[in-house]
């Protein structure tokens, strides 16, 4: 008997269809995986099920009766709860206070802590969290916090529980813990929706699988036992595309030129024995599931992390200096997709943002900052990078996302870096600006920079990089290039660690 059934769910945002005719059947005591690439419609489906948004069309039925959720609180009243990736706990309160954020038992005007503890203890024990209930949540490990959050959801006696990306790293403990949690949920006859991008985990833990792609349901409630990881990857990414008209440019033959080098680099609990060489003119991608160790490569080169063994050398065979600031001084550029947080001063004009590294951070232009010179240079960048703005005195916060990201590129290119580290450089940028930023990256490489690219956008990796290193549990599982380099292979190797 199905608890919650979603049928023909459609949702459009400003003319873009996020989800078309989506369907899911959630059975009690069963775990249903919801999979898809970024932008496939997963989160839209979750939001509809959880009452965060209302669909444009389609129906939800619970126990055969149609329902409409007006809010998340309404959904909770109907017995649908969400445990999300960002844990929504109060770190400065103790476990008990976190378990009863609203429905706390009272005695007169006071909390009835004893009743709260009596209600909570069996659930926590069943979940395997044997910690004093007066412990502050701040003092718990990430895994323990997750159990607290699950316990909080269970105290509301849900019929359906949505686990939204419950583990971010591929660690054994996380998977075992999850297995235990799901066992409890199954035995309580809760219907579970499991949203994840870690396919190995999905194969271990789930009973049925729904895959979305571009808002469409490509696999609906299929039995996990009938599927292999390859089938799921194909469903998520669609048929393998023909090679692009323009193949990636041939890597330059500069074996003797300056290179960025990692030799047998290990970082405790993050990566082991990683070797990497990037020549001037090359664009090398690093990728993997969250926590696989690929981002640590960027941090090592930026001086934000020190290797516990092995060496990292910048082009020209120089060591990476300690600390971000010195690394920047040594010619490392860090273009982050988090342009609002790490990239820009939104309340300041374009010229000031563009000059920030070369003239201000590194004071390469002497002890006097001449505004006219900075503006002149900024105008040059605005023309070259085709940044669409009124003039260089416009505040950066008023530009579109794509143009803001171009300003970030400009401020780093202004300092003519030897190493360009790109972390999701086109996050949230429209297609046109994205292509232009890709051209800029290619040009920077052609001009002699060493380029390292980390991206959650697999298409970007496949399109832009000469080769891509796929990390799996702290090691390089494969180096893909040429005909091997496509999204399917990246996803498969990221998830299985096996290539070939």
């Amino acid at each position, binding site marked *: 008997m199905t608890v919650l059934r979603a049928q023909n769910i459609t949702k459009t945002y400003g003319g873009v269809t996020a989800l078309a005719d989506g369907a899911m059947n959630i059975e009690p005591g069963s775990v249903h995986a919801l999979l898809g690439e970024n932008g496939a419609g997963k989160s839209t489906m979750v939001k509809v099920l959880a009452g965060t948004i209302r669909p444009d069309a389609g129906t939800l039925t619970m126990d055969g009766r149609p329902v409409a959720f007006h809010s998340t609180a309404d959904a909770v009243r109907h017995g649908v709860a969400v445990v999300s990736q960002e844990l929504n706990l109060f770190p400065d309160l103790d476990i008990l206070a976190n378990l009863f954020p609203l429905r706390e038992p009272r005695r007169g005007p006071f909390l009835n802590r004893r009743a709260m503890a009596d209600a909570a203890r069996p659930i926590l024990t069943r979940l395997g969290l044997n910690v004093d209930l007066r412990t502050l949540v701040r003092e718990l490990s990430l895994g323990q916090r997750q159990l607290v959050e699950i316990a909080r959801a269970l105290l509301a006696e849900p019929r359906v529980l949505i686990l939204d990306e419950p583990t971010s790293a591929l660690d054994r403990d996380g998977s075992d813990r999850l297995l235990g949690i799901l066992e409890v949920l199954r035995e309580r006859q809760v219907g579970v929706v499991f949203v994840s991008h870690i396919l190995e985990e999905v194969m271990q833990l789930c009973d049925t699988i729904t895959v979305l792609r571009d808002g469409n349901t490509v696999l609906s409630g299929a039995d996990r036992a009938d599927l292999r990881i390859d089938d799921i990857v194909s469903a998520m990414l669609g048929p393998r595309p023909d090679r692009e008209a323009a193949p990636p440019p041939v890597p330059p033959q500069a074996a003797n030129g300056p290179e960025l080098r990692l030799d047998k680099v290990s970082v405790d609990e993050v990566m082991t024995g990683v070797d990497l060489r990037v020549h001037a003119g090359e664009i090398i991608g690093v990728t993997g599931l969250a926590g696989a160790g690929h981002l640590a490569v960027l941090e090592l080169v930026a001086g934000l992390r020190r290797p516990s063994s092995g060496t990292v050398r910048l082009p020209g065979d120089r060591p990476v200096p300690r600390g971000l600031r010195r690394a920047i001084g040594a010619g490392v550029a860090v273009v*982050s997709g988090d342009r609002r947080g790490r990239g820009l*001063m939104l309340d300041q004009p374009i010229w*000031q943002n563009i000059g*920030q590294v070369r*003239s201000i*951070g590194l004071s390469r232009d002497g002890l006097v900052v001449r*505004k006219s010179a900075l503006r002149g240079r900024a105008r040059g960048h605005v023309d070259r990078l085709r940044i669409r703005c009124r003039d260089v005195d416009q*505040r950066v916060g008023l530009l579109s996302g794509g143009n803001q990201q171009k300003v970030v590129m400009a401020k780093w290119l202004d300092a003519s870096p030897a190493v360009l580290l790109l972390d999701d450089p086109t996050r949230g940028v429209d297609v046109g600006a994205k292509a232009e930023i890709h051209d800029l990256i290619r040009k920077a490489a052609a001009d002699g920079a060493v380029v390292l690219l980390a991206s959650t956008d697999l298409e970007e990796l496949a399109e832009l990089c000469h080769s891509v290193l796929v990390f799996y549990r702290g090691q390089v599982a494969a180096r893909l290039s040429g005909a091997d380099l496509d999204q399917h292979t990246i996803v498969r190797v990221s998830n299985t660690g096996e290539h070939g």
Partner: protein
Amino acid sequence: MTAHRQSETGEKVDPAPRSWGHAASLSQAKLPSLAVRAGRGEATSVLVATVALVAFISILHPEFLRVGQLLDTLQSAVYVGLLACGMAYLLSMREIDLSVGSTFGLTVVATGLMMNEGLPAWPAAVLGIVLGGFLGLVNALIVQFVGIPAIVATLATLSVFRGLTLALSDGKQVTGLPLESSFFTLLGGKTFGVPTSVWVLILIAVVLTLVLRFTPFGYRVRSIGSNPDAATFSGISIAKVRMQALVLIGLLAGLSGVLGLAFFTSGDPNIGTGFELQAIAAAIIGGTPLRGGSATVIGACLGAVLLSVVTSGLQYFNIPANWSAFATGGVILAAVALDSLVRRRRRRESAKLGL
């Protein structure tokens, strides 16, 4: 969101925020007329407020307009004014120094004591300024190595420095100074008919404005206040810049103390109590926002002048002495409220343009 914030310093305001995208406006935008620039200058509202207040007092009490009275008012604004210049730097990088009043007091007393010990006045004065810088360094080192925010560190040193002042002077006035020295006659007297300390303030204000607008240090200070993470990710060391700014304000407090000693010709161990709050008020009235990202040194000086006008102006109204602090607070509130209203209206105008 930050996107809607109005840029705060006159220089950085978009030259033509009211004309969208006309090519013709570009040439005008590059060289807005001096009047327009002055009109948009951030120090304008405090200047207008000061002039209006002086006019108001003078209408009721014309004797306030005497040159002597006005110069006295300026003279008494110098000490807080110098502190406010440094405070503008700190506020614009989202930091604050609460110990400057005590640094001021300690410098006054220590410099006087050095003179009493037989050190000639001028070397003692130089040492006094160095002492101020050293106390700023102490603050910076505490912030850096104890790892606490500047507001907490300087809250402690506010007491520590004041305590030192009282202990060194035994709680008594430092007197018997070599008043015949050119130090006292020059710095405590007038030059070209204006108190020398006022000239010093003007000089310092000009220099610090240039530093703020034309050096990497000045840009770094404002960058940190605008977005600390982006500053770090641009190769700016927040720790280093903060240290430099705290030493700067210490040096300014030292200079202010030395000028104070020259004028008062004796060292009261309680002198400068509460100056830190006046300096913060002056900087804010002058147009340096607490959220950081921009500063105006000239505005901070004018803010100090406004406070001084309030204090000396109140003497002309038969306000009982016990009500003068109340009245001062009221005027500060009015000045800040006026400024905020003007800003909000400006912001709304830009919002209408879809900014």
